[in-house]
């Protein structure tokens, strides 16, 4: 049991800790993540009142890392929700109805796939501007394709199955067929893709911040904090280490969960 599910359980623990921190951030620290006393800037970890030290504006790093969990999970949840719905619908439509709408939609997906994810998100951010909402928008716009492809593939294979064909032959209506037979079969794939995409989005936020288009300060997003820490790389290692560790552990946890889900639900799924 532990042998088979050990990594999954580890991932689940990490994820639950991240969720608990996000929900309970105000209970875990009394500091405001946005307000700082810049007379007390760049204090190292272990300073009185600041277990993880302070940043360049004297803000408590622990508070920023804890509240950062909220931002990270928020970005992850929103983008996954948007991409799963949009990509899933596109995949369903393309797979179920086929014909020219399916072809057009999948060509569209091809066009997008031929363009690197990060560059596309950057292009969109360059147009709509910076900030939390816009980064969710750009990540979503760049991330829906995976769902569309996976779901379409699943739908095509489900449609071939005998009982579905039988149901269709018996005159079951299109929408009933879709919701009774097809959707339950593709749902596991969507869940798996979602859990694996989730952590990718959190990591992508960091990359986009690095290139100058990230979540806007003073919002304590881990990626932006990491990107800001470059200014202080040789003087305040904790500014890079703490949000970095938080980001990596959370992403790892969610990745492990996604991987575990795949092993349990659909070991053949390839993404």
């Amino acid at each position, binding site marked *: 049991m532990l*042998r*088979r599910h*050990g*990594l999954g359980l580890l991932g689940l623990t990490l994820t639950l800790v991240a969720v608990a921190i996000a929900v309970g951030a105000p209970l875990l620290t009394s500091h405001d993540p946005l307000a700082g006393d810049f007379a007390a800037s760049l204090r190292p970890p272990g300073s009185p009142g600041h277990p993880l030290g302070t940043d360049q504006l004297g803000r408590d790093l622990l508070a920023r890392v804890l509240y950062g969990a909220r931002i990270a999970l928020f970005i992850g949840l929103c983008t996954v929700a948007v991409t799963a719905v949009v990509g899933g619908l596109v995949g369903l439509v393309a797979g179920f109805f086929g014909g020219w709408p399916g072809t057009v939609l999948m*060509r*569209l997906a*091809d*066009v997008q*796939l*031929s*363009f*690197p*994810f*990060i*560059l596309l998100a*950057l*292009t*969109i951010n*360059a*147009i709509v501007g910076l900030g939390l909402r816009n980064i969710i928008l750009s990540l979503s716009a760049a991330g829906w394709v995976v769902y569309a492809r996976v779901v379409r593939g699943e739908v095509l294979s489900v449609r071939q199955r005998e009982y579905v064909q039988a149901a269709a032959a018996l005159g079951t209506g299109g929408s009933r067929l879709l919701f009774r037979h097809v959707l339950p079969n593709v749902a596991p794939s969507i869940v798996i893709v979602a859990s694996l995409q989730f*952590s*990718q989005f959190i*990591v992508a936020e*960091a*990359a986009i911040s*690095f*290139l*100058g288009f990230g979540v806007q300060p003073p919002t304590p997003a881990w*990626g932006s904090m*990491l*990107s800001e820490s*470059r200014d202080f*790389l040789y003087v305040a290692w904790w500014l*890079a280490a703490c949000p*970095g560790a938080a*980001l*990596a*552990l*959370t*992403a*790892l946890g969610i*990745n*492990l969960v996604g*991987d575990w889900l*795949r092993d349990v639900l659909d*070991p*053949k*799924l*390839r993404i």
Partner: protein
Amino acid sequence: MRIYLLSRLGQTLLVVFLSLTAVFFLVRLGGDPVLLFLPMDIQAKDVNEFRQRLGFNDPLAVQYARFVAGATRGDFGESLRYKRSALALVLERLPATGALAGTALGLTFVLAVPVGILSAVRRGSLVDYLGMGGTLLGQAIPGFWLGLMMIYVFSVRLGWLPTGGTGGPAHYVMPSLVLAAFYAARTARLTRSAVLETLNEEYVLAARAKGLAERVVIGKHALKNSAIPIVTLAGLETGQLLGGAVITETIFAWPGVGRLTVQALLNRDFPVVLAAVFVISVTYTLINFGVDLLYGWLDPRTRVVAPA
């Protein structure tokens, strides 16, 4: 076969054309391209004159028609920032990116495929745990952070490797490792699941039953059949590899296309952005075409299959 090739070519052209069109209109939704390359003491009337001369005052449809007319002749216009042919700017940097991405891809396979195979063959063992845990960690660490840490350790502290730029083989080590880190994770996982799947296929079981050595069973039967999804992934990943190159090239001062593209985006150098999109999508479709041909070699059954 000829029909297949022609249809592939048609599809490729369509995809490239659609990409260019989408990006053309996307970038024009953004801000004024003229301000960013002019000095700050410029007068409003001079700004307008530059815009007029560069054709940015024309209706969007006219600009688009002009762009299409130029692009079909391979002319993407002059870079706003560098006053040189935009396509030449991009093509000059293609070899550097190709060399880096190629090394990274090679490294990905050298690192990831053995890990994936071992994990599959010894499923549930410590090797599997470490391999899969490690590769997932590779996906959880932002590339730029990894890069900066490596520079700090291996260049500043230890003095083993150059911090960036091109030159000898030593210059390739850190950039290609950072670029490969993320993709290695995915490739390793895919290899694992593909091998796991084939290990349960009947012919593998049969080969085992025949008493063939485990090495032969895995090497000859399982691996060759697992190769298809791995190669497919490699094809799909190249596009994303170019995306990862944006960050790697910026950190390691690598004179490649990714760095140029992101600079062009930041500077609103539209002709360069479009030329880069053109080059990237052509490269991507060519690679995937190559992957399709490779299928035929790996799996003769797909050789005559009509385009998917």
